[in-house]
């Protein structure tokens, strides 16, 4: 089984659009499982016409802990305040007691360990939910959602991938396709870990190229082979050439170039991937799949 992850660095370059279209075409010939690992802002379901309520059952997950404080036991020594490296503890001078900021607490337990009066404990918190659904296309989609205001998106991503692995084993899938979050931070690192191949999507803008390079350095950190797709390449053909030159220089395979077309937005608004919305686009994405297959076999 192969694990393919879609990545971009910069947001809005077309990860989800690409994932939804590749998923539909891949699933015509192969058994696949698709995982939406953008647990901050999961959109792949929507792009496929699936809403949150269409998932049969959301399972709450607890990957994080938070400090809770018993003011009766506290002797106001301020040791917790000194030890917190995340700025999650402030001092209330009036009451002479600590105040805990749940949004910033990482649940590391340092304050609990240092408190001489055992006035601080850690409790598990619901910080997300995951679910999966059989789509009307020929594959299952696993999705997750970080609870608003919670930390630990990387760990939620880890659970989404675990679920995808289990389903893949059960359904004897040949491919797990992962759509990752924007950026290069913890949810992205969690998404690409263990991948066999990375498809990086970019667009011909200086910002996107800058972010792409950062994303690729992250991929290289994990020594995973990758290729690049230039989306909306015709918005600035000169810059697209610049990206292609950069790729040639470093021997990075070009997996495809996708033109800008307002039909992509229309398809999105209609919650239908463009290969279904307008068959005219099928050959373009089929070619991309051929290229990916070739690279994976190397």
């Amino acid at each position, binding site marked *: 089984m192969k694990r393919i992850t879609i990545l971009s*660095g*910069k*947001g*809005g*370059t077309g990860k*989800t659009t690409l994932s939804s279209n590749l998923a539909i075409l891949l699933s015509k010939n192969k058994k696949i499982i698709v995982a939406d690992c*953008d647990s*901050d*802002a999961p*959109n792949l379901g*929507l*792009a496929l016409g699936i809403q949150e309520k269409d998932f049969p059952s959301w399972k709450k997950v607890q990957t994080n*802990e938070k400090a809770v404080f018993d003011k009766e036991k506290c002797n106001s020594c301020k040791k917790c305040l000194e*030890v917190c*490296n*995340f*700025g999650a503890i402030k001092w209330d001078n009036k009451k002479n007691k600590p105040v805990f900021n749940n*949004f*910033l607490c*990482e*649940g*590391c*337990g*340092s304050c609990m*360990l*240092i408190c001489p009066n055992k006035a601080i404990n850690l409790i598990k918190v619901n910080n997300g939910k995951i679910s999966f659904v059989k789509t009307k296309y020929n594959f299952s989609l696993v999705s997750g959602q*970080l609870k*608003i*205001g919670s*930390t630990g*998106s*990387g760990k939620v991503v880890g659970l989404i991938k675990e679920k995808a692995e289990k389903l893949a084993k059960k359904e004897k899938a040949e491919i797990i396709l992962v759509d990752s*979050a*924007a*950026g*290069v*931070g*913890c*949810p*992205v*690192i969690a998404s690409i870990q263990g991948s066999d191949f990375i498809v990086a999507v970019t667009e*011909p*803008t*200086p*910002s996107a190229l*800058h*972010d792409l390079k*950062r*994303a690729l*350095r*992250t991929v290289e*950190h994990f020594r995973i082979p990758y290729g690049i797709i230039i989306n909306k390449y015709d*918005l*600035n053909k000169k*810059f697209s050439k610049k990206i292609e030159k950069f790729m040639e220089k470093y021997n990075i395979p070009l997996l495809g170039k996708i033109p800008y077309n*307002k039909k992509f*937005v229309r398809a*999105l*608004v209609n*919650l239908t991937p463009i290969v279904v919305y307008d068959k005219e686009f099928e050959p373009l994405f089929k070619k991309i799949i051929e290229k990916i297959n070739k690279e994976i076999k190397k």
Partner: protein
Amino acid sequence: MKIAITGGKGGTGKSTVATALAVELSKKNKVLLLDADVDCPNDHIILNIKRKKIKEVYQPIPKFDFNKCKKCGRCAEVCREHAIVFIKDKYPILIPEQCIGCSACMIACPNNAIDKDKKKIGTIYSGNRKNLNLLSAETEIGVEEESPVVNALKDHIKNKEEYDFILIDTSPGTHCNVISALQGCELAFCVTEPTPLGAHDLKLTLDLLKKLKVPAKIILNRADIGNKNLIKELAKEYKIEIIAEIPYSKKILKLYSKGKPIENENIKKTAEKINKFKKK
């Protein structure tokens, strides 16, 4: 006044709007733009600013003193990030990528065998374009714990009172580094697009801002392609004003793809509205 530019979905135009507003506002005000998209900071590229490195950001990591270590395994037991591997009768091993710098192992070690070392997690840069000041931060590749970099960036602002406006451009999404960027802001502009995906992520951002008690306003970008009602309904539901609608324009795209800030009537009008928020 501290104003965040955020929005949930990536690529809706946060940086485009943040840089354009910063340029426009700085014509009459003292403005600081803070690029808190520490994953992928782009504001300096759009503004064509050569940034100067001004500070490195570090987090603590443990350093074992094997002369003192009694191989008890307590450090690995308290580490909630599983950054310390302990096998019985062996010395503990640190996986530095997993360490978030909490110091729990140092506190828990009964033999005082763990010293504080440090790991570089980011860099803070500064630059300016006419009278607009930019502070920007970038994480090191492979760093998971990004909030400390955002916090260091925010702490780095000197003479806060000097500025009429501090604009904070955040990462996409709703995770920890976005939360760190939003905390303490007096207002947040949520930049979105009229697609189901834009609406979905905008809703998440509005929920987050509600929790953080930061008042929000919506800036609808590429307002004329897609379905505007998706955003209008959401604005109505949350009782939030759509402060500006920026139509799709090839000119904006061209400027953006060349790495230039946009200047147009919509941005000017929005800047005028923001000027009225200014504290007297």
